[in-house]
């Protein structure tokens, strides 16, 4: 180790020494924007959200047809000028039903994440930060929860509550928060050992402040990615439940219900299964691409 010598003046920097101000999230956005698939996914998701929000208005304006109104005389029609995507076995307009179905799928996909954060996030945060016996207790509870087969668990819950949008939403949330709890706990465990947490303690920051200011923001990246990947999973689960018949109840259009309806006449008009299937696939892919893009954008090693 060489001998440090007292240095010359420290104040010789000028204005041009100050680099451009780039916030963390600005930086993340820049990198996200460069990922074409992710941007494509985001565009599709925005379109889906707009469509779900405006479906009711579009019906009122007569631009699309009523999704519930039956026209038995034109059942199982192929695509035409009047029914762009044809009709189902009761003669209901498939395009309109798809658009209304998006409402259910998106709201379940996104809102369920809120339950994950509420239950899983809180449990993970407390377990990771408190450590010791509290951690052990909470994580064993989580393990037990995880041991239940999810689909069966959801089925039981939904049939107990009687099937409705709310019960599906709650059931999926209650069953699947486990992964998030584990992730958050792991994040918190590693972050709380970081030196900046110790230095926050050394200047006298309170526990609550350390959790809210240091732990939560630093754990946000991976949590966001996981939540994004959780959306298609929840959408898929809702479709599966509706297909089995314990999910959304007819005549309310949901993509799962539509596949079930189409399945009844799959030989007469296979398109009626294909359209909702494609809608689910596109939505899931879009969210997955967004998740991938976010993960890369949040990874500091990808910084160029």
């Amino acid at each position: 180790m060489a001998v440090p010598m007292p240095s010359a003046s420290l104040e010789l920097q000028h204005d041009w020494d100050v680099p451009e101000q780039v916030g963390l999230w600005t930086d993340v956005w820049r990198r996200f924007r460069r990922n074409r698939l992710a941007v494509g996914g985001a565009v599709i998701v925005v379109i889906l959200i707009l469509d779900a929000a405006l479906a009711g208005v579009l019906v009122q304006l007569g631009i699309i047809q009523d999704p519930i109104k039956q026209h038995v005389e034109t059942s199982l029609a192929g695509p035409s000028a009047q029914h762009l995507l044809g009709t189902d076995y009761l003669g209901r307009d498939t395009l309109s039903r798809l658009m209304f179905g998006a409402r259910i799928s998106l709201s379940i996909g996104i809102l369920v994440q809120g339950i994950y954060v509420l239950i899983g996030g809180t449990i993970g945060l407390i377990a990771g930060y408190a450590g010791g016996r509290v951690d052990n207790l909470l994580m064993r509870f989580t393990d037990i929860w995880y041991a239940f087969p999810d689909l069966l668990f959801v089925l039981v819950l939904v049939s107990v509550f009687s099937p409705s949008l709310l019960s599906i939403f709650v059931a999926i949330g209650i069953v699947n928060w486990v992964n998030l709890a584990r992730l958050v706990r792991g994040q918190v465990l590693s972050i709380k050992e970081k030196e900046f947490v110790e230095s926050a303690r050394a200047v006298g920051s309170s526990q609550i402040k350390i959790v809210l200011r240091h732990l939560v923001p630093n754990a946000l990246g991976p949590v966001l990615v996981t939540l994004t990947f959780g959306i298609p999973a929840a959408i898929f689960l809702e479709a599966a439940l509706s297909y089995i018949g314990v999910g959304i109840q007819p005549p309310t259009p949901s993509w799962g219900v539509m596949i079930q309806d189409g399945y009844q006449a799959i030989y007469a008009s296979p398109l009626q299964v294909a359209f909702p299937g494609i809608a689910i696939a596109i939505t899931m892919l879009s969210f997955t691409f967004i998740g991938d893009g976010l993960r890369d954008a949040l990874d500091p090693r990808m910084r160029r």
Partner: protein
Amino acid sequence: MPVPILRVEDLKTQFFTSRGVVQAVDGVSLHVNEGETVGVVGESGCGKTMTALSILRLVPEPGRIVSGHIWFRDRDVTKMDVEQIREFRGNDVAMIFQDPMTSLNPVTRVGIQIEEAMTAHERFSARDALGRVVPLLQRVRIPAADRRKEDYPHQFSGGMRQRAMIAMGLANEPSLLIADEPTTALDVTVQAQIVTLLKQLNRELGTAIMLITHNMALVASICTRVIVMYAGRIVEEGPVGQIFKNPQHPYTWSLLRSVPRVDETRRSRLVSITGLPPDLVRLPPGCKFHPRCAFRVDRCSEDEPSLEEVGDRQVARCWVLMRNVPQEAAKELEAVTISQEAAQELKAVSELEEAADGS
């Protein structure tokens, strides 16, 4: 008469691991006076950092302060409750850590982090705290402070981050700043800037500084008093000039010999201390340094010496003391080490030449 602000009495901090009890700090007593600069030196794992963390009651699991008292003015830190200790940290004694790269929260703006250090305490109102950020950054010589306070830590260089850390440490005007290896992660020119800054702050604000380091040169340039630690205990203590000129403990003597010097002739070689610091779970009997000591006598492996006065305000924990070692013996030790190293170097050179001939 200097007023002591911090008095540590017979502090013992131990870690209860599966291997056994690690005696990280074993009976340390020390004091820091108002406005004083004290250096604490020793190898890695000798208990310097644990002493500092004990003072702030930040000893990590599974460690704990087993006995002893830490008096800050007239309050015993070891007896404070959770809220008192939180108020004490940063307000009375602040600490800055070794690695400025990881000591700032990467997702929060630097200015906000400094402000937070103040709002954690009652000394400054929220408005005053906000207003103090820029002057604090200017005080630690951050250029264009009013704009740089909006930066995130990754936009700061290593030296700037360490200065921001110092600003955070000083935010509440503590009477004592503990700096744990504040320059280790920085390159030499930046080290020099930080050293100058610490010296200036000590002079301007009268903040006492406890500098923890293994860098003897750093101690020489800032501190007035130095404490040498080995195996969780103090082995020598005294005014810097005296310790550097007349080290009495063989460990201090060896430490000083192991520092490379710019002004030394090319012929002289570095002396290293043979062996490793002892395992803190199974400490050797007697003097903890005796297995590595070149000047040991029989007694060293049996009885542990206590800290005895060996000069004006200088104490050492040794049965032998360097002043009793004949000059020739010390010289000889250096000569032996040097000839060994010289032989190795010669061998390396000849191997290189052979390799060159072969190709």
